[in-house]
C-alpha cells in the first residue's frame, strides 16, 4: 500500500459550542478521489479548512507524508492546492492578471501557459475583461483554471461545482479522475450528485450538542 499523502488521526473540532466531529480518522492515498459528505452544518467546509491549515481550532493529529503536518508547513503548502467558497479572484483585475497573481507565489508561468489554461476553462475572449464584469460561474472558472496548470499532488476543493454549468461539471469530474490516475489525490465537498468510480467517502454526521 502506498504511503498516504495526508493522514488524520482522531480529529475533533468544536465550533460555536457544537461538536462537529470527534475521533475522525482517515487516510488520503495518492491516486484517489475522496468526497466529504454530510448534511448542511455538519462541518464539511470546516474539515476542509482544517485540512488546508486555515482553521486551527481542532485537536488530534494530521500527518503529511508520514510527518506532522504543522512541522512541515512549507512543504505541505507547496504541495497542496485549496479552492474555497470564495474563489480568490480580485473583481478589479482581469482573469489573466488574477491567474498570474495566484500563480506568482507558487509556480510562475509565462502568459502563454496561463492563457491556455484560461482557454481550457472556456474563458477565451474574456482574458482582458475585469472579473467584476464576468458572471459568477465565469469567475469560478478563473479559479478553476488553476486546476489545469497545478502541479500540486493534493487538491482540497470546497463546493467546486457551484455556479458551474453541466458541461463544466463534466469537465471538472474528468479532471479529478485524471488527477487521481496521475497519482494525485483529491478531496472534495459538494452538494452536487457526484459519484465517480472508485471514489472514497468521509461521512460527517449531524452536529451533536455537547
Amino acid at each position, binding site marked *: 500500500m502506498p504511503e498516504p499523502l495526508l493522514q488524520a488521526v482522531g480529529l475533533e473540532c468544536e465550533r*460555536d459550542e457544537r461538536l462537529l466531529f470527534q475521533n475522525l480518522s482517515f487516510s488520503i492515498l495518492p491516486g484517489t478521489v475522496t468526497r466529504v459528505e454530510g448534511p448542511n452544518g455538519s462541518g464539511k467546509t470546516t474539515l476542509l479548512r482544517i485540512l488546508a491549515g486555515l482553521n486551527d*481550532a481542532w485537536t488530534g493529529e494530521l500527518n503529511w507524508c508520514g510527518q506532522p503536518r504543522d512541522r512541515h508547513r512549507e512543504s505541505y503548502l507547496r504541495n497542496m492546492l485549496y479552492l474555497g467558497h470564495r474563489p480568490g479572484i480580485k473583481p478589479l483585475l482581469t482573469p489573466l492578471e488574477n491567474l498570474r497573481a495566484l500563480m506568482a507565489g507558487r509556480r510562475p508561468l509565462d502568459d502563454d501557459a496561463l492563457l491556455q489554461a484560461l482557454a481550457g476553462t472556456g474563458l477565451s475572449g474574456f482574458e482582458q475583461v475585469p472579473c467584476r464584469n464576468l458572471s459568477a460561474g465565469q469567475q469560478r472558472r478563473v479559479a478553476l483554471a488553476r486546476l489545469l496548470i497545478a502541479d500540486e499532488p493534493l487538491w482540497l476543493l470546497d463546493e467546486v461545482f457551484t455556479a458551474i454549468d453541466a458541461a463544466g461539471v463534466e469537465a471538472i469530474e474528468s479532471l479529478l479522475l485524471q488527477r487521481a490516475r496521475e497519482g494525485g489525490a483529491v478531496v472534495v465537498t459538494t452538494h452536487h450528485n457526484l459519484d465517480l468510480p472508485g471514489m472514497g467517502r468521509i461521512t460527517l454526521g449531524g452536529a451533536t450538542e455537547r
Partner: protein
Amino acid sequence: MWQFFHKLGSPKWFFGIANRFMPWLLAGGLILLVAGLVWGLAFAPKDYLQGNSYRIIFIHVPSAFLAQSIYIMMASAAVVTLVWRMKLADVFVKSVAPVGLMFTFLALFTGAVWGKPTWGTWWVWDARLTSMLILLFLYGGVIALDRSINDEKSAARAVAVLVLVGVVNIPIIKYSVNWWNTLHQPATFKLTEKPAMAMEMWVPLLLSVLGLYLLFGWLACLRMKTEILVRERRTRWVKDLVLAGRK
C-alpha cells in the same frame, strides 16, 4: 513538572484550589488593607508641604501599582495562551481585564482628587496621569475586542495578541509621555512621592499595597470561577456541582 503544568490548566482543578485559597486571600487582604489605611489615614504624620491631602496616596499608589501590574500579569498569561493554549490563561485575561480597568480608573480618580488641593485643578496633563489615561485606553481596547468576538477561543487568542502588542508599547508610551511632558511644561509638579519619605508613611503604604494585591487575588479567583462555570456549563463536573449546591 509537565504533569503539574497540565493540571494547572484544568479548570476543575483550579476550582478546587481557588476554593481553598480564597478565604485566606480575602481575610489577609482585608486585614492588611484596613491596617494600612487606618494607620495611613489616621495616624501617619502630616506632610509638611501638602498637609493632610497627601494621604490619598494610600489609595492612589496601591491602585496605580495594581493597574500596571495587572497588565503585566495579563501579558504573561497571554504568552501562555498563545504558546500552550492553556484554558485557564484565557480565563484569567478575560476575568481580570475589567478589574485592571477599574484600578486604572481609581488611580486616575484619586489622582484628580489629589490634584484639586495640590494644584488647584482637577486635571493636569502630568506625565503620570497621562500615562495612566493611556493605560485606561489600552484596557478599554482589550475589553472591547474581547466582547466583539463571539467565538471564545478566537477571542482569547486575539486578545492575547493585542495584550502582547500593548505590553511592548507600554515602556515606549511611558518614555514618550515623559519626554512630551518635559517639552511642554517644566517639571515643577510631579505626582511622585518625595524620595525621603518618612518611615511612618512607608509602612502603612506598603501594608495597603500588599493588602490590595491579596484582595485582587481574591477578586481574580472569584471572577475566574464565574467565568469557568459559564464556559464549562455543559460538562459533567459543573452539572454535578450545581446539582449538589441546590440540595
